[in-house]
């Protein structure tokens, strides 16, 4: 009898503990592209699914524990954030800097509500966690990988291309890091760059990539959203035709997108600059669960594995992967410094002075 009582007591205590550490509820707010954008929002969504032990095919807790609200127009951002704030979830996640103004207006009105915003570091409220990524570090790594590959292939006077979306501080991080990475291996290499001024015009990137590959550019890195798929398409065509040129993927591992042979063993995507947005959503959810959530900027870098490069392509070879990993260690330890701003990198003479990168 006594034993049973103790057991019941222990059990009830256990259930209290379990209740305290229960998974928080979360709502993801996205722009019009939704969680099927194969990029940014999709990655944030993956992190949420992972946290609750679900997968894309099995979303058992969707609707109760987690869900997504997609805004059809920009003027819906504020009402949408207010609405989910009214509904009191454990955490509200907004992706991308286009949400920054709306969140900055709503967050102070709901001081008890916890928010996470990705890619932003200027919405400073105690209830807002801001996740930023050191894309310049990852871009440096893929630059090093591309240059090492050119060296291994014995390419004479190799040129390297960069295709950006809309110029601005975020994309500058990619371009500056990439250029620095290439030049750290091949100081005399020529860097060419092009901005499509659009995130969704793959045809522009494809035309530019064709011109560049024809003029002796060895590898092109695109940080241009959907526009960048044009680069990969052109690299696939040329590699299938026997030309030794490469594309580099961005954000997600785009190895699969670059496969160009029937046996599915060859990809035109040499490597990818991986930005793990999912690690930011996972991190914030864990913090809410543990009660360690606090406002402020959290930086995801190569050290925390928020930023990485892909070694999936066999063409890269063990040797190059090992070398790039060594560079990665140097970045983590602080031995190698990668600049995020074009002005800083130019001042240090680490990049050419004729790039189109913009710091604002």
């Amino acid at each position, binding site marked *: 009898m006594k034993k049973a009582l103790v057991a019941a007591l222990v059990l009830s205590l256990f259930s209290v503990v379990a209740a305290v550490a229960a998974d928080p509820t979360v709502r993801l707010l996205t722009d019009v592209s939704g969680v099927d954008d194969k990029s940014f929002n999709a990655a944030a969504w993956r992190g949420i699914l992972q946290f609750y032990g679900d997968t894309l095919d099995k979303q058992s807790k969707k609707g109760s524990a987690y869900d997504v*609200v997609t805004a059809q127009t920009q003027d819906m951002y504020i009402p949408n954030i207010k609405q989910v704030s009214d509904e009191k979830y454990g955490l509200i996640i907004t992706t991308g800097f286009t949400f920054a103004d709306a969140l900055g207006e709503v967050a102070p009105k709901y001081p008890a509500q916890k928010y996470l915003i990705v890619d932003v570091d200027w919405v400073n409220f105690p209830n807002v966690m801001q996740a930023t990524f050191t894309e310049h570090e990852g871009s440096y790594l893929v630059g090093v990988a591309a240059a090492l590959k050119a060296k291994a292939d014995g390419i004479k006077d190799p040129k390297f291309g960069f295709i950006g979306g809309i110029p601005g501080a975020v994309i500058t991080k990619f371009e500056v890091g990439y250029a620095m990475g290439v030049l750290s291996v091949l100081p005399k290499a020529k860097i060419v760059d092009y901005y499509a001024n659009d995130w969704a015009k793959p045809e522009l990137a494809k035309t530019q990539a064709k011109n560049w590959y024809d003029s002796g550019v060895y590898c092109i890195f695109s940080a241009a959203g959907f526009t960048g798929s044009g680069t990969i398409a052109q690299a696939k065509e040329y590699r299938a035709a026997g030309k030794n040129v490469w594309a580099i993927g961005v954000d997600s591992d785009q190895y699969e997108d670059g496969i160009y042979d029937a046996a599915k063993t060859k990809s035109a995507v040499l490597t990818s600059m991986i930005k793990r947005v999912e690690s930011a959503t996972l991190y914030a959810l864990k913090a809410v669960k543990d009660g360690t959530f606090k406002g402020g900027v959290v930086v995801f870098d190569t050290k925390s594995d928020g930023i990485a490069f892909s070694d999936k392509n066999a063409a890269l070879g063990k040797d190059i992967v090992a070398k790039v990993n060594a560079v990665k260690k140097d970045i983590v330890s602080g031995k190698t410094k990668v600049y995020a701003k074009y002005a800083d990198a130019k001042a240090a003479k680490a990049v050419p002075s004729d790039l189109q990168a913009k710091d604002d």
Partner: protein
Amino acid sequence: MDIKRRALVDRLASSNAAMSVLVVLLGFLVGTILVLAVGRDPANMYRAIIQVVSGFDLARGTWNARYIGEWLVASVPLILCGLSMAFAARAGLFNIGAEGQYIVGLTVAQFASFYLPSVPVFHWAAAVVLGMLAAAGWGGVVGFLKAKYAVSEVVATIMMNYIALYVSRYATQLIPGTNTYKTPSFPATARLSNSWLESVTNGSRLNTGLFLALAAVLLFWFVMEKTRTGFALRATGFNKDAARCSGINVQRSLTLSMAISGAFAGLAGCIVALGSFGYGRVLAGLDGYGFNGIAVALVGNSTAIGTLLAGLLFGMLQSAQPLMQSRQIPKEVTYIISGLVVVFISLRSGIGLLLEARSKEQAKSAARKGELRDE
């Protein structure tokens, strides 16, 4: 009994308003069936709609007037773009260009808020007037081309939409301090925000634009139904040649109707720019209000009051959508409902014919029965 029923069917078939209501109900019915078909609870859909129009959250037992305010905020540009479409439609024109005219109004209002003196009331009023004038010009050009050179207004307005978008993007980025997606903040005097409306709706973004939209509805009705200009426009819409023969200046009517149509859409742009946002936007894409306005005008039968009600309906669907998503109703359901409503409206004349034919059939068979009895 039969005669009564026939009269009812006749009235239904001949009354556009009744048909609109019927069609909307039909749209909701199919929407409900769809929600059931995908295994969700349609009650959640209606709870979301009730929350939008009344502010009551039935699931949580809370009341928040902000939802009503946001419903009206979403409805205002829809009503105005609906009026834009309706005004042109009454003169026999198909204005697909409300989207572009909306963008022109929005862009000019954004510019005006930075370059006009910061005098209370005058500032936003002048910005709105300039935005409307510019949009009127944007629409008027198409009307002129149609009148003078018989250029299809459908093709011209579609092209003008994209010209407006890209010119807006380019021009807005010239404002000092603008980055690739937004301008600096507007001066407070340029904003349409209205502290009284905000406070009665518990901090929604409901703004002076609401009154401007209501005034526009009144103006539409007055011009269209009570003035000679309106009569000339309607006559042109019914039969261009007959209008010309009766001494109506058709060229002027066409140009004027497109210009006024543009002004309505431009006003929508001004209200969204200065009412819903505190900064100017470098548009990344089309907002879609102009296109949705076409549906609003169709459901509203191109009348002032009809467009007002249809705008409120579409605004309700739009602002209920995020609430539905929070209640596991797929976001596509609201598109399907509004899409179905438009399809059914297009079938309206067909349904009318069907009803008429059926009632005639019944009358005939009734008559035959009577004959048989007589024998």
